[in-house]
């Protein structure tokens, strides 16, 4: 579903951000991307939704190959995945409801279906009473819920979350994380970059740890190694 094959990414001014990274995220999986700032977490996410293309190697997302992708295909791909950010990226002049509806409108979804879908999503993220609020009238946690609802409008196969709880207090963090778990439980894969090790420790999801552009630990591989008996005894 998402596959990185010997991927390197070098920015013209920022140097090497990813260095020969390979991994695979399966359908319906929940995986954390962890590591210090500048480790390459955000670059991986950008490569998944193809805001960036690799300098070397191949990124494959839902049958789209980074080596041969055209601009129009990228737009189509993004309709199949949802993305949320630390800074929410909501349109400030539009209400919660309009922000969510907007993501459907840009895909030329039939008008009749938009209203029903938006109110269902608002209910799902627990914001049905705030449909007409502008982002500035909502708390951080609520804004992130709107962003998540927007990311879900097209029933994505994967939700990509770049530090989604980075701007939230503990309570809001727990709420948003629970929402992501629920979404995952319903079948959507989640790839979440985070600094919050508490969240990582409290769950038993897969952890991919990055440092200086390389994967230094992948719990899935460690588990496979353990099964194969290749793990080094402690």
């Amino acid at each position, binding site marked *: 579903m998402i596959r990185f094959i010997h991927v390197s990414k070098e920015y013209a001014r920022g140097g090497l951000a990813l260095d020969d990274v390979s991994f695979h995220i399966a359908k319906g999986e929940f995986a954390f991307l962890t590591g210090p700032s500048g480790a390459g977490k955000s670059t991986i996410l950008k490569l998944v*939704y193809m805001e960036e293309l690799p300098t070397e190697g191949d990124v494959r997302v839902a049958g789209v190959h980074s080596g041969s992708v055209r*601009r*129009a295909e990228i*737009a*189509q*791909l*993004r*309709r199949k995945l949802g*993305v949320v950010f630390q800074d929410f*990226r*909501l*349109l400030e*002049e539009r209400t919660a409801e309009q922000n969510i509806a*907007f*993501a459907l*409108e*840009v*895909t*030329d979804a039939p008008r009749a279906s938009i209203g029903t879908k938006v109110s269902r999503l608002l209910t799902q993220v627990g914001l049905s009473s705030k449909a007409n609020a502008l982002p500035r009238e909502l708390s951080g946690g609520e804004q992130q819920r709107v962003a998540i609802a*927007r990311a879900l*409008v*097209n029933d994505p196969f994967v939700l990509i979350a770049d530090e989604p709880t980075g701007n939230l207090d503990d309570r809001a963090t727990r709420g948003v994380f629970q929402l992501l778990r629920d979404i995952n439980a319903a079948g959507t894969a989640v790839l979440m970059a985070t600094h919050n090790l508490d969240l990582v420790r409290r769950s038993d999801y897969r952890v991919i740890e990055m440092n200086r552009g390389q994967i230094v630990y992948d719990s899935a591989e460690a588990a496979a190694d353990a099964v194969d008996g290749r793990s080094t005894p402690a």
Partner: protein
Amino acid sequence: MRLTLRETLLAFRRAPLLSALSVMTIAFSLFSLGLFVLVAVNIRDALQQVEERVEIRAYIADGTPVEALAAALGDIGAFPEVARADGISQEEALERARSELGEFRDVFDAAFLPASIEVRLKPGFRDPETVGAVAARIRTYPFVDDVRFGEEWVRKLYNIRNLATAAGVILGVAFAAVAIIIIGATIRMAVLARGREISIMRLVGATDGFIRRPFLLEGLAKGILGGILALALTYFAHSLISRTLVATRFFDERIIIAGIAFGALIGLLGSAVSVGRHLRRV
């Protein structure tokens, strides 16, 4: 289309000041161009009026038979360069001289002025070479005593006209270029102000065409509004000049339509280029 229209209106409503500013910038850029075109059109009119006075006069020898004169008039009138050829008899020449020189009218009492053929040329054939060539052909008639066409004056007029045309074209292009650059920069500003919105649209899977459409419509609307406003300003300036300085002619419909279409085109192209550049970057 409905969505494009809604997004365009929203853009105007959300940033009314910026929108008004771009419309005003477009209007004033086109206004300066409009003023220049107004001056150019009026100078061209004035020159054309003077040019219409370019004429060739062939003086006829005394005693020329009327039939020969009539045949020559027919011939000359059929020259491709000639708009009209009129025969002026001695009596008519006298009458004209009397009316033109009122207070000396009593001086002219005899038929001492020669008969003549007065030839006016079609537009486009009033340059010194053509005038000279037609005059030379008329001179070949045996009964023509002399041919005059104010050679020096025709040459000067022609030079002035050429100078005015060259200056008009160069200044016109410069004014248009300045208008295009200013309007382009204004629209670019409007696009940059909505950079965040564009990146969000791309993020949720909007195609480039979808993102582009409201901007194109917005640019088009701003261009048309700016064009209309520029036209109103130019009309106001024209009325003021006509009332206080010199009577001028305003644009005809063709120039009015061309002016507004020019505004619309710059608005549209400016938006297309700005959004295109922006989309390539994000």
